[in-house]
């Protein structure tokens, strides 16, 4: 029996479409068709095991499976080499077209949009919690574990509980040195790390009009840091231009109905917003930079699926060009994809970064997850453009991590302590 078409949010509409229903309501358990199913070198091995346990012969669609080497590559040790090899062999055996090996690979959430693999209206499931990044394009995207993903590879389907939506409305004029990272940190600071558990976050408001895509990716990316299932924007002209430039499909534009029901609405006026910093050891421990002690830094990291895009590097470059990283502070920078890297070379940014004293890594997750390249030692303090600063996230359990935007990170590297670009 078909239900009367109720007013729905964009998240509900995309889920309804993929469940083959006219409408869905929060709390409904629905079985949905998946448009893209992603895994990386850490989560793929377990998903491959599940796929084999299911005794499936083929993946549901070799064009819709994506495998990216990004976490522990270039192989950090023999065990990671084995995991990467397993993934490569699986991709070969099952004819997976979107397998990204070194040279093509970058951070999954940077390269999928860049390669046009996600378009508005898609339903994307990834065995990585930051899969929610693609919500910036008006897609429903959520992270799952490896078993869910292995089952999707074998069946093309998964079950989801339709989430309630929290509407976040941003108004005002964006101040200098403030952007998506600061917006989303204020959200997480207000909601808390479990404030949006099992919920959808919908980003709207005048302050987001014309906001460049890299800021939107940063915001959707960190929805999960408030516990959310997905974070989503409406695909406006900026998003549609991005898609036109990168993808061959144009996707389907969904829009929340005016009468759609929200669990609650939160307003943010960005006009007076300062750059925000998340203090150790939680992404919800947020303060404006003027309230943060000028803590001395051993390391600064600019990169990751949160802030490793070209626009992020440009913001860091504005601060770093013709300046020097402070003695006693290491600056590690990792462009999120080979294309980002190449463009950074072309624009002369790489030369500027090297002259400033930064070290540049190959496109990968790098120090973000504390296992490879730039691991923090006992007692060390870092400021990072990544998304998590839990105890031990970037190394020793007695190291501390502060999170901020790329311009603040660059300024802090120059100052050798936490500081704002406005101080330079």
């Amino acid at each position, binding site marked *: 029996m078909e239900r009367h078409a109720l007013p729905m949010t964009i998240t509900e509409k995309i889920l309804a479409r993929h469940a083959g229903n006219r409408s869905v309501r929060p709390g409904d358990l629905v079985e949905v068709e998946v448009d893209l199913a992603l895994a990386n070198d850490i989560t793929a091995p377990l998903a491959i095991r599940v796929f084999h346990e299911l005794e499936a012969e083929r993946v549901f669609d070799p064009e819709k499976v994506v495998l990216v080497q990004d976490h522990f590559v270039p192989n950090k040790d023999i065990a990671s080499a084995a995991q990467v090899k397993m993934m490569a062999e699986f991709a070969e055996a099952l004819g997976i077209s979107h397998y990204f090996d070194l040279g093509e690979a970058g951070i999954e959430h940077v390269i999928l949009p860049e390669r046009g693999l996600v378009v508005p209206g898609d339903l994307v499931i990834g065995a990585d*919690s930051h899969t929610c990044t693609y919500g910036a394009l008006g897609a429903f995207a959520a992270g799952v*574990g490896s078993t869910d993903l292995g089952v999707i590879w074998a069946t093309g389907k998964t079950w989801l509980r339709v989430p309630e939506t929290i509407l976040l409305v941003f108004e005002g004029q964006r101040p200098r040195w403030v952007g998506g990272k600061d917006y989303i940190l204020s959200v997480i600071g207000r909601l808390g790390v479990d404030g949006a558990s099992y919920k959808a976050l919908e980003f709207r408001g005048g302050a987001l009009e014309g906001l460049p895509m890299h800021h939107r990716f940063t915001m959707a990316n960190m929805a999960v840091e408030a516990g959310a299932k997905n974070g989503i924007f409406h695909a406006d002209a900026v998003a549609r231009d991005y898609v036109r430039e990168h993808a061959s499909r144009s996707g389907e534009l969904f829009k929340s109905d005016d009468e759609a029901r929200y669990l609650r609405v939160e307003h943010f006026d960005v006009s007076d917003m300062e750059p925000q910093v998340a203090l150790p050891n939680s992404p919800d421990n947020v303060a404006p930079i003027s309230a943060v002690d000028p803590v001395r830094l051993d390391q600064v990291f600019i990169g990751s699926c949160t802030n490793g895009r070209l626009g992020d590097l440009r913001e860091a470059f504005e601060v770093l060009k013709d300046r020097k990283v402070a003695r006693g502070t290491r600056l590690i920078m990792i462009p999120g994809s080979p294309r980002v890297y190449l463009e950074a070379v072309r624009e002369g940014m790489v030369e500027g970064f090297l002259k400033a004293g930064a070290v540049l890594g190959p496109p990968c997750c790098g120090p973000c997850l504390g296992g490879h390249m730039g691991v923090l030692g006992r007692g060390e303090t870092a400021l990072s453009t990544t998304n998590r600063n839990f105890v031990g996230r970037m190394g020793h359990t007695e190291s501390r991590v502060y999170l901020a935007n790329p311009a603040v990170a660059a300024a802090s590297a120059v100052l050798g302590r936490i500081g704002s670009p406005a101080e330079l």
Partner: protein
Amino acid sequence: MDYEGRVWKFGDNVDTDLIIPARFLNESDETILAGHCFSELRPDFAEEVKQGDILVAGTNFGCGSSREHAPLAIKASGIRLIVAQSYARIFYRNAFNIGLPALEAEEPLEGLRDRIRVSVSLESGRLRDLESGRSYRVRPIPPFMREIIRAGGLVPYVKGRARAEGNWRLY
């Protein structure tokens, strides 16, 4: 389904990096993962946990990454059941998918300490402290999740359904 075992008590916001730090994710063998489980938070855990023990935690258990290595390491260490105030979404899903039931307590589990013996009944939604006799309400799990647990996890569940009704076709 009834469970009885010794309690391991944890606090709020225990994230996946504390359950199993990322640097150990170059492995996916669960017995090796179990050896590193809670290695920084509770260095005694891996050594002393026994088959059938029950993990009790506060709010937002398992927040952070999607790594299934986290519930796998817990399960392979011998823990049979988790009871927490609340869970991070992906962890909750992962736990059921690998056949590790995760229950939500409906009231604070303040009285519970390490090594107390408790019994938990999924049917009646009760957790009983076998030393003090005090009991706590836990939320019954949705029927769909109960079926997954009964089947032993999502893989046997999907295989069963693919066989039974052809609804989940395996390619």
